[in-house]
């Protein structure tokens, strides 16, 4: 893990009309680090991710990538800045084969024609480098299992050489064995020096791969802890806010009358 964070978000706030989705959130990510971003529904995890992905613009706050301040205009800009995102609904084309999916939108062409053989070879290289096995390249993605499709989606993003990878619930719909594969992939990304932000509801998954956990609650950061200093229980307490509260916190919670330790 390097000294200078590859990503710094300072004082990020986001409002949607009257709703404060994020309030004064600071977030840091180092290269080769996996940060688990957790929180209950509506905590603001998705919003934070989408700001990084260029889908939303922050109402307040700054974003720095490798020391330079940036304003992420749109998803394509985000990609150019080296931010890769894996959405929960994947971005694969079912009727295409694996190489076509890995290269979708960024095909290699020779004299205007698709260089199919080269894309096949490079796809094989990417899959091998991630130790993804038993994927016949000519097979249509439609016929693959959920875990395999997620693996292809991750390969696709990794192939764009991101510095930062945002993974939004990558294991949500997967079986146990497939989940293990995806988590292994995330670890491999980490070994390559990519900074990974993992949004997940699954505490076991988060604890399996993260170096740090950042907890959001109702748009604010309530925890930023190294993984080996906390237990699952501690984190859950932070998420639901069941720990002892200061009077300040109690005052704030009164403005949300229907939400108390849900």
């Amino acid at each position, binding site marked *: 893990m390097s000294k200078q964070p590859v990503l710094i978000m300072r004082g990020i706030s986001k409002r949607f009309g009257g709703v404060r989705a994020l309030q004064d959130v600071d977030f840091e990510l180092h290269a080769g680090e996996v940060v688990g971003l957790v929180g209950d529904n509506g905590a603001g995890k998705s919003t934070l991710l989408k700001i990084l992905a260029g889908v939303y613009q922050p109402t307040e706050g700054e974003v720095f990538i490798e020391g330079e301040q940036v304003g992420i205009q749109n*998803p*394509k800009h985000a*990609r150019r800045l080296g931010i890769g995102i894996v*959405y929960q*609904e*994947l*971005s*694969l*084309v*079912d*009727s*295409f084969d694996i190489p*076509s999916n890995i290269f*979708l*939108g*960024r*095909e290699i*062409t020779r004299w*205007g*024609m*698709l260089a199919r053989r080269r894309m096949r070879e490079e796809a094989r290289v990417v899959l091998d480098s991630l130790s993804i096995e038993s994927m016949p390249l000519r097979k249509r993605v439609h016929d693959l299992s959920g875990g395999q499709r997620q693996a292809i989606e991750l390969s*696709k993003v990794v192939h764009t050489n991101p510095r930062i990878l945002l993974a939004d619930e990558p294991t949500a719909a997967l079986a146990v064995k497939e989940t293990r594969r995806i988590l292994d992939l995330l670890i491999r990304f980490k070994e390559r020096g990519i900074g990974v932000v993992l949004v997940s509801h699954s505490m076991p998954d988060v604890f399996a791969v993260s170096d740090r956990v950042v907890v959001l609650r109702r748009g604010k950061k309530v925890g930023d802890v190294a993984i080996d200093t906390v237990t699952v229980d501690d984190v859950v307490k932070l998420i639901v806010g069941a720990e002892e509260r200061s009077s300040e916190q109690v005052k704030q919670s009164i403005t949300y009358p229907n939400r108390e330790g849900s």
Partner: protein
Amino acid sequence: MHVKNEGPIAGLKRNLRGYAMGIEWGRELPRIVAIASLLTIVVVFGCLNSRFATLSNFITILRQACILTVLALGLTPLLIQGEFDLSIGALAGFIGVLACGFQASGYPLFLAIGIPILVAGCIGLLNGIVVVAFRVPAFVATLGMMFALQGGELLYSGGSLITKINPLYRFLGQGWVGPIPTPIFPMIGLALIVLVLMQYMKLGHYCYAIGASRRSAMYSGIRVGAFRILFFMFTAVFAAFGGILLTSRLGAAKVWAGELLLLPTYAAVFLGGAVAREGKLTALGSVVGAFFIALIKNGITMVGLGWYWESIILGSLLIVLLALSSTRGSK
């Protein structure tokens, strides 16, 4: 494969059985039905009229197929993307009348053809903008355009026939290069362009991607909106080529001639899809489909059925083809 001590008949039986078992009957049945029906129709026509199965008739069919092929080739990428264009027939008619009128007014040939093609491009652009930017469903938007173009056609020609035809213009649709009808050449040229485009180039590849999943294409950085508009223009320009070949062949700017091509064009594209290996719409399939539709049209006339039978037969065929394609789960 050689099995010892097996007689030749037994060996043949075994291989045929293996082949038959290897076919996924459920998936291949629609394709087999389509091909079988086509062959049946051809045979029936041949039996009913001995002049049907002659070389000279075949060449006539080829000439007629060229116009349909050009229209079908232009429509195919758009259908692959999941869009729809009902205005192609009217556009072909309108542009054909326009080009005919220009060359009759003494414009040099390249202007008489060039300007209407540009006009077609603009019309396609308009279609695209209405569908993509204003989110009007393609079916409705192009239907409206169809009516507008029909009106425009009547307005321009004044309802009368333009029969003064420049011999060079006439050559396009009615001429011969040796034993080969002239329109074959532009048809083959355009066919090759579309084939290469769809099979080997990014543009064609993206058509299939957008057709399969617009969202995945968008997430992957493909500019879906611009693409859709581009291909409305593509379809329009090809319809224009078809319209020019049409009036050239007819030797006159006949109102309503283009509109009649709407149904056969769709039938051609979907017929191509039905006989293709995976039920996919392809450029090659559309070429083959257009040829067979032209063949059927010709056959209908040859056996003495009136031209109105054409709509009934092609319309029914289209319904069957669409039903077949939906059972195969492809677009």
